[in-house]
């Protein structure tokens, strides 16, 4: 059955993955706009809403890319490219259906962890390279944030790997055949979502690109470079949501619908949660977040590993 729904050709698989990620970016943008309009108490026109992301993209593409006086130009150019590449790798580790992931490596959670660790490099470079005050502060903010969420992110994935006896996401999904991890490891998903907000610098953890820095690392960026940055960030968001769906919501498993459809639906559900925080939760004070991440989130993640181990004995 899955063979019909999941193409064998590597090119078709890559195209399916690209469609999945691009569609996810579009859906996330729509959800953010929709919720924003709702919270603002403004009306919605379907046409303007649906065309919005494309118009925005066209606007940015027809705008000049700005430069600063003495930027680190190669690093500035590299940041969005690498970020997008990492997002693609991270999305590639996720099995969309039962038969395969595009890059379903055996050490999937390590590859995902490595990609998310390198996100720190991208955001830091994006802030550093402009040689301007606000982006610089934004870049340094993200380093503090990343050093704090990376441990819980890795630990909850390790906890999910325990019952699967494997580091691959395919096995992690299969290990949830009886009961999803969201029930079996109740601490996992909430901790993962906090870390996911951190790695996508979204909502309360949008500290590097915050309004109090006039846009932070984006403050000096415009045109195609800004479009690239926003697309790359959206791609990370989709990848992180897809990994969450596979790790905690049973991935492709579900009744009635074919596997990939379940992956898409669950990914959309997590995307909605991540995106909703943008309009519902105020930005945190970074110092507070760092202390809370180390003093509360990491111990909770360790507890998650511990409890998982106890249940497996």
């Amino acid at each position, binding site marked *: 059955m899955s063979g019909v729904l999941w193409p064998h050709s590597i090119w078709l698989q890559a195209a399916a993955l690209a469609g999945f990620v691009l569609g996810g970016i579009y859906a996330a943008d729509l959800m953010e706009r929709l919720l924003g309009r709702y919270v603002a108490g403004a009306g919605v026109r379907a046409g303007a809403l649906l065309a919005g992301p494309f118009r925005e993209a066209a606007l940015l593409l027809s705008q000049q890319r700005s*430069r600063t006086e003495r930027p680190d130009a190669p690093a500035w150019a590299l940041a969005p490219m690498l970020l997008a590449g990492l997002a693609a790798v991270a999305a590639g580790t996720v099995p969309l259906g039962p038969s395969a992931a595009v890059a379903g490596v055996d050490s999937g959670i390590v590859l995902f962890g490595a990609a998310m660790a390198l996100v720190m490099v991208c955001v830091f470079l994006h802030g550093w390279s402009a040689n301007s005050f606000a982006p610089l502060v934004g870049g340094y903010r993200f380093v503090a944030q990343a050093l704090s969420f990376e441990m819980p992110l890795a630990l909850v994935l390790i906890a999910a*790997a325990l019952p699967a*006896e494997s580091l691959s996401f395919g096995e992690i999904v299969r290990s949830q055949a009886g009961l999803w991890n969201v029930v079996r490891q109740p601490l996992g998903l909430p901790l993962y979502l906090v870390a996911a907000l951190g790695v996508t610098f979204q909502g309360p953890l949008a500290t590097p690109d915050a309004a109090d820095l006039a846009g932070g690392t984006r403050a000096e960026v415009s045109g195609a470079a800004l479009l690239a940055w926003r697309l790359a960030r959206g791609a990370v968001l989709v990848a992180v949501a897809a990994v969450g769906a596979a790790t905690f919501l049973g991935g492709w498993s579900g009744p009635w619908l074919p596997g990939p459809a379940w992956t898409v639906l669950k990914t959309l559900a997590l995307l909605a949660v991540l995106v909703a925080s943008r309009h519902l939760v105020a930005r945190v004070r970074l110092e507070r977040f760092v202390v809370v991440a180390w003093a509360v989130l990491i111990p909770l993640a360790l507890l998650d590993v511990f409890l998982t181990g106890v249940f497996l004995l």
Partner: protein
Amino acid sequence: MAALGAAFALLLGTGIAFAVLRFVGDLLQPPGTSAPQRVPFAGGRPPEVHAWSRYHVRYYAMALLFLAFDMEMVFMYPWAVVFVQEGMKAFAEMLMFIVILVLGILYAWREGALEWA
């Protein structure tokens, strides 16, 4: 191996696609070169100095804690794979891990090293 190759191809392919995006943008609208346009934005006044400087990070103690923590954590990956097979032995090992990590955090927290300097 094939999967790793695919991951590498994804990294490379996406990177190239974004490079093309940038190139197309530059074709449509060449990037700015004039001196007044390149002045970093600070609300209408020019900066006095380069922003690049010996930047005083306030979380250096936390960063050092991370270094040790990171190293400790990677041991957990291979251990997680064999946990079910090894049973009690692996559990005891895990306990030791968790105790070490929690002790580290506890010490850092008591010393106020997590707060920013």
